[in-house]
């Protein structure tokens, strides 16, 4: 077995723009993504993003992860998302290096 280097882009942002972020990911040519419900606190206050999360037991953020086999694509996704959304919506994005099993999948 050999593992191959790849990049993982992580975007943590408001649930309501999930669709738009996923569209950017698809357009960039990534083969898929994974979404997890999240809560959090950032520069805009505790769960600043949720319309009604203080009383209702809910996570109003999402954490979206994309594995890509190509650093440029990774940076492209990060830039696009930050440009389009992070002025008006709260969110962060960062990157990690991972080892993948089947490089042809990504």
């Amino acid at each position: 077995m050999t593992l191959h280097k790849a990049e993982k882009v992580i975007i943590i942002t408001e649930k309501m723009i999930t669709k738009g972020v996923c569209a950017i990911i698809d357009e960039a040519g990534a083969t898929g993504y994974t979404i997890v419900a999240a809560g959090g606190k950032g520069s805009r206050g505790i769960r600043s993003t949720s319309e009604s999360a203080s009383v209702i037991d809910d996570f109003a953020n999402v954490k979206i992860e994309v594995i890509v086999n190509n650093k440029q694509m990774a940076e492209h996704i990060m830039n696009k998302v930050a440009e389009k959304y992070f002025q008006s919506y709260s969110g962060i994005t960062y990157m990690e290096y991972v080892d993948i099993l089947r490089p042809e999948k990504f």
Partner: protein
Amino acid sequence: MGGMLIAALGSHLKIPNAVYQFIVFALLMKIGLKGGIEIREANLSDMILPAFSAILVGIIIVLVGSFIFSIIPKIKREDGYATAGLFGAVSASTLAAAMVLLEEQSIRYEAWVPALYPFMDIPALLLAIILANVYQHKQNKDADTKVDISGIIKESLRGSALSALLLGLLLGLMTKPDAILESFYEPLFRGFLSILMLVMGMEAYARLNELRKVAHWYAIYAFFAPIMHGLIAFGLGYIAHITVEFSPGGVILLAVMAASNSDISGPPTLRAAIPTANPSAYIGASTSVGTPVAIALCIPLFIALAEVVFK
């Protein structure tokens, strides 16, 4: 019922999101079903004037609100449009609370009146969004984004709140759901509503903090606007009373719709369509001040007013 509003200070009590969503769904289905059943049997011509009044009220509220905020210094224009839109839109829960009160005091209303909800809600949201977008166009002239009106209408009809209401309406119009309405939705109605009121009360308290961070003007607007909006609608409703015998209860409900501000579907719609507006400004003001005023002050006020006027 109003008394439960401020109750749960500091408590760890939380309502699971799934339950909250289901309660909202059930309330809107109930209003829709009932409305649909009634429209089936109603005289359509009776509905024209009240429906037209609802549209008019939605538009007036947004225009007046936008104007007010535009003359207040240091308020971002987008924030003003969004706030005006939210107060023009309608709260299903406030409306439901008024319905329960009217029934308790046996004040009659045409059952299709609550179904006028979207007639006020959609024009108000739409107009606010359009105004904000037009404003932004003027600011950065190079931008070539167009305002996609039909897209906005579609999105707002597809939102989960309006979907449930319209689905209920449709089912009420086309099928015979009377049995389900009576055996299922009616008994749950009051209980669910009381839980919703509880949630809203806790929410109002929780948002006070947020409100403190934005300009006082929002709080002042949020206090007086519901009363003003309700009175405008009451006046238009009164005209409909004289001309097409719109019931006193109907007039009250129209006024309550105007006084209410959207708590479920409005905020996400506005957030998506006017992303540059600061949600703390409009949500804080409406949830912490506007909604309590609409429920605890306006509903009894308009009932009392109706007793004076229609006696």
